[in-house]
C-alpha cells in the first residue's frame, strides 16, 4: 500500500473524529446544565458574560455605527428617495445578515481566541487534571458556563448592534432625504416581519453556541507543551469563522 493510499484511508477517520468531538461537546454541555445550581459554576458564567458581553459593548457600538452609516449611504445612493425600499434593504442587510454575522466576528476576535488560549494554558499547566482530582468536571465548571455565557452574549450583542446600526441608518436617512424621523420608525416596524426577527435571533444564538463550542474544543484538546497553544488559538479562530459562515448559509437558505 502506498503512502498516498494510507493517508487517504486515514482522512475520513480524522474528520469523523473531529465532527464527533464537536458534536459530543454540546451534548455533554446540555447534560451538565444542572451544575448551574452550583455557585462556583454560576460565578464562572457571570465572569464570562461580563468578558464576552459587557466588555464588547464599545467595539460592537463603533462597528454598528459605522456599518449603519456605510450601508445606509450606499442604499441611498442606489435607490434614491424611495423610503420603503431603503428600509426594506436595511432590514435585509442589517437585521437579517450583518447584525448576527458581524457580532459573531467581533466575538470570535475577542473571546474565541481568549477561550482557546486560556483553556489550552490550563491544559498544559495540568490545571484541568487538578480540577478532575477535586471531582470537579471540567465540562461543568469550565465549558458549560462559557457556552451559555457566549450564547447569551451573542444574542444581546446582536440586538445591540442592530439597534445602533438601524438607529444610525434612520438618522442618516432623515438628514439626507429630509424625511421625518418618526415616520421612518413607524415604517420600519410596519415592514419588519416576525420571521426576520426570529431568524436574527436564531442566527445569533446558533453563532454564539458554535463559536463557544469550537473554541472550547480546540482549547481542551490534549496538548503537551506551551508551543501548541498558539496553534490551538489559530485553529479555534479559523474554524469558528468557518462554522459561522456555514451555519449562516444553512439558516438563510432554510428560513428565506
Amino acid at each position, binding site marked *: 500500500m502506498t503512502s498516498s493510499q494510507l493517508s487517504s484511508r486515514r482522512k475520513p477517520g480524522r474528520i469523523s473524529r473531529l465532527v464527533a468531538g464537536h458534536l459530543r461537546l454540546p451534548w455533554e454541555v446540555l447534560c451538565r446544565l444542572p451544575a448551574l445550581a452550583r455557585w462556583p459554576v454560576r460565578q464562572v458564567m457571570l465572569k464570562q458574560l461580563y468578558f464576552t458581553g459587557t466588555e464588547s459593548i464599545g467595539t460592537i457600538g463603533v462597528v454598528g455605527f459605522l456599518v449603519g452609516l456605510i450601508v445606509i449611504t450606499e442604499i441611498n445612493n442606489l435607490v434614491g428617495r424611495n423610503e420603503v425600499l431603503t428600509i426594506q434593504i436595511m432590514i435585509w442587510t442589517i437585521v437579517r445578515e450583518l447584525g448576527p454575522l458581524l457580532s459573531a466576528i467581533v466575538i470570535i476576535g475577542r473571546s474565541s481566541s481568549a477561550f482557546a488560549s486560556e483553556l489550552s494554558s490550563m491544559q498544559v499547566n495540568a490545571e484541568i487534571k487538578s480540577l478532575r*482530582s*477535586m*471531582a470537579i468536571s471540567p465540562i461543568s465548571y469550565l465549558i458549560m458556563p462559557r457556552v451559555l455565557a457566549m450564547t447569551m452574549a451573542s444574542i444581546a450583542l446582536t440586538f445591540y448592534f442592530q439597534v445602533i446600526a438601524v438607529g444610525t441608518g434612520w438618522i442618516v436617512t432623515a438628514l439626507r432625504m429630509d424625511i421625518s424621523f418618526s415616520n421612518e420608525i413607524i415604517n420600519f416596524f410596519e415592514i419588519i416581519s416576525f420571521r426576520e426577527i426570529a431568524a436574527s435571533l436564531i442566527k445569533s444564538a446558533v453563532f454564539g453556541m458554535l463559536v463557544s463550542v469550537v473554541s472550547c474544543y480546540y482549547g481542551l484538546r490534549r496538548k503537551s507543551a506551551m508551543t501548541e497553544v498558539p496553534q490551538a488559538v489559530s485553529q479555534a479562530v479559523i474554524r469558528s469563522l468557518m462554522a459561522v459562515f456555514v451555519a449562516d448559509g444553512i439558516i438563510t437558505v432554510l428560513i428565506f
Partner: protein
Amino acid sequence: MTLLQFKNVAVDMASTVSFSVEAGETLVLKVSSEEAKAEVIDMALGELIPAHGEILVHGQSLEASRPGNIGWIPAGGGLISNLKTWENITLPLWYHGRRQSLATEETVARWLLELELDKQEWEKFMASPTAHLKQGERKLAGLLRGLIQAPEVLVIDAGLFDEVETDRSYIWIKVLEKFVREADGRAVLVVASAATLLPWKIIE
C-alpha cells in the same frame, strides 16, 4: 484497611510497581524517573489506564470508586490560574456544597494556624490572584487546598517540598501527619523520583 493498591502495574515501559496504602499511613513511593512519577500519579488519579496490572481503591477498580477519593497536590501547587488564592483553596468545598461560608472560613483558619502562618501574612496572600504569588506561596496554597479537600488518599508530588525552607518543610510534614491522624481512613502517598529527606517509610 487498604485504601489504594497497585498490583503489578506496568510503569515507564520497563518495570512494574506493586504496593498498597493502608489507612493511617504516610508513605513515600520512590520511582526510577520523572516520567515514571508522572505515570504513577496519573494512574492513581485515573487519568491513565495501565497497560498491565490492576489499581484498586477499597478493593474495587479505580473506575468504580467515588470521584475525589484520591486527592492530588502537584509540585507547583496546581492552582487554577484565573482564580484568586482564596477561591482556589475553597473551590472543592464551594463546588461540592459541603460547607457554609462560616464553616469554610473556620476550616481554612484552622489549617493556617497549623501551618504556623501569621494572620497578616495570610490575609494578603488570600486576596492575591494566583499569578501574583511566589512559587512557595503557590505550593502552600496547593497544600492547603489538598488538606481542605480532605480526600481519603492524598497523593503528593515530592517536588512540592523542593526549594522550601527546612523549617517550613518540617511544619508541612507535621501538618500532613496530623491530617492522617485526625480522621479514620486517611493516608498520604508522596511520589518521588529522587532521594528525599521526608521522614516516612519509603517503598522502592
